[in-house]
């Protein structure tokens, strides 16, 4: 009992059952460059459990048909699976109604849909859009383009040295000109978890609408869109152990109903003549064309899997793993962690004296350890900290303390290679 903290966390590790969990992910049975794969690039994309892979396989082998139109057995099966996933996501986000869940390609498309459909309809010259200095490019560029198109002005919430949003500055940016606020729930580059509920309340005080980019948050913490009271929430399936190319947009029904379609074609119509087209109701108005049926079914399976483990257990486990990793990294000389927010998800963004992140990533890769090196599609964040790039280890519930130890050993090896 020399280290009671470690003992208690071990018992919780057992509660989550990481050893057993890892067996659910076929990819971990292989070696990379002769070493066991240590996958620390979860903020880029996560690995897929067998339950997801099997759902895709089973769908194509036994259930494949188009949805919403076939009057035949398989089409009814495919349609019910597709719509069952929508209900799963509704419950997962605690949306009021399943029609508030729109399937999109990912968080990026969700943001583009809102910027395009809501933004171009309701924003005009002189209006203001607020984003934050922590955003991924996908939550910057659509708003920049919208600003150029409408004449609205883009404002940015500044970031502290710890990587936290400066809410007093945000307060100052808000005014009756503020029409829209788009903010990430959790920073992909630094891990900061933003106080989105507060940010939303402050925006609503000025009657501005709020979109939350939840791409990084949903795999790691429970999200309740009604409690947050956000107007829009987006996430990507592949970051929550589901397939690529699928994600969801949540929008309050009243807002979605008042918005024009984003894309047009089949499925989004109720009646078409050459003179006029009547649009379908929600959610189909925003789902033109044959959807990513397989992706939707796989995403449903991924959400079942995550809920089966329990997001509260995942959150507890990952929090401890982050604390362990933070301590271990800081035990090495010449390492600086970028992003030290009080509320932080399991991302370790760091730099090493005298060695560029790109070189760190190459040397780690040869030890079987996958990390990301670069600007993480968040160049303004890098600029804020005066860095061209960082090395980023982003963790998930299937990662272990043993893997953190392997990372630390590999970082020592980086020093050896560079003879610093």
């Amino acid at each position: 009992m020399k280290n009671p903290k470690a003992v208690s966390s071990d018992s919780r590790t057992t509660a989550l059952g990481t050893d057993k969990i890892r067996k659910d992910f076929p990819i971990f049975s292989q070696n990379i460059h002769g070493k066991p794969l240590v996958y620390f690039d979860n903020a880029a994309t996560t690995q897929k459990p067998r339950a997801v892979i099997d759902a895709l396989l089973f769908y194509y082998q036994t259930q494949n048909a188009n949805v919403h139109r076939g009057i035949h057995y398989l089409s009814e099966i495919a349609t019910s699976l597709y719509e069952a996933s929508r209900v799963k996501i509704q419950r997962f986000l605690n949306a009021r109604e399943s029609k508030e869940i729109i399937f999109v390609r990912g968080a990026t498309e969700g943001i583009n849909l809102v910027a395009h459909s809501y933004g171009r309809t309701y924003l005009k010259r002189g209006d203001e859009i607020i984003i934050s200095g922590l955003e991924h490019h996908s939550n910057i560029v659509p708003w920049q383009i919208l600003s150029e198109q409408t004449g609205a002005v883009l404002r940015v919430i500044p970031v502290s040295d710890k990587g936290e949003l400066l809410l007093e500055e945000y307060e100052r940016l808000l005014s009756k000109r503020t029409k829209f606020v788009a903010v990430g729930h959790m920073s992909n580059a630094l891990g900061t978890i933003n106080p989105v509920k507060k940010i939303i309340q402050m925006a609503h005080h000025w009657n501005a609408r709020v979109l939350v980019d939840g791409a990084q948050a949903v795999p790691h913490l429970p999200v309740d869109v009604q409690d947050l009271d956000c107007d829009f929430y987006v996430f990507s399936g592949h970051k929550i152990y589901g397939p690529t190319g699928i994600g969801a947009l949540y929008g309050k029904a009243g807002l979605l109903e008042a918005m024009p379609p984003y894309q047009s074609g089949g499925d989004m119509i109720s009646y078409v003549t050459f003179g006029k087209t009547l649009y379908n109701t929600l959610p189909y108005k925003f789902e033109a064309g044959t959807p990513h049926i397989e992706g939707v079914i796989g995403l449903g399976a991924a959400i079942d899997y995550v809920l089966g483990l329990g997001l509260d257990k995942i959150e507890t486990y990952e929090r401890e793993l982050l604390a362990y990793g933070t301590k271990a990294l800081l035990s090495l000389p010449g390492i600086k962690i970028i992003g030290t927010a009080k509320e932080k998800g399991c991302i370790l963004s760091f730099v090493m004296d005298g060695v560029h992140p790109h070189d760190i990533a190459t040397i780690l890769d040869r030890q079987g350890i996958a990390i990301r090196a670069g600007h993480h599609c968040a160049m303004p964040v890098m600029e804020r900290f005066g860095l061209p790039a960082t090395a980023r280890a982003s963790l998930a519930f299937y990662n272990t303390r043993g893997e953190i130890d392997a990372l630390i050993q590999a970082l020592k090896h980086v020093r050896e290679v560079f003879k610093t």
Partner: protein
Amino acid sequence: MTDLNELYQEMILEHNKSPRNFRAITDATKKAEGYNPLCGDRLMIYLKLENSRIADISFQGSGCAISKASASMMTTMVKGKTKAEAEALFEDFRKMLGRGAGSDYDTKSLGKLAVFSGVCEFPARVKCATLAWHTLYSGLGNEAKIISTEEGR
């Protein structure tokens, strides 16, 4: 770890630590900026051309060991060469890194640049090694735009 030693050869590490010609040329006749958007590497090449000959060359910027060492060694190799000679050297350098079927490059002319031959085993790093050269190429070709390693993709 043999392949890592192939990549991070002594000379590369040494040039990374103490890059040559790492400065601005105030009376440069040409400047060119190179950029690798994948990793954020950015460098500026300064050239002083006299009758198609590289009378002086320098660079500044930030990047990984491979890109920095490559830029440093490039400046030492092309200084004094004509535009055509520098471009021929780039061609051989590129062939060495590509090492595709039938790529016959002139090992003799490459000289100490041969230390970069290990880079071809690390496809993700080839762009790091060629960034400075692409930038030089644009500088010699009198193009004013920023050279991106991701162009045409």
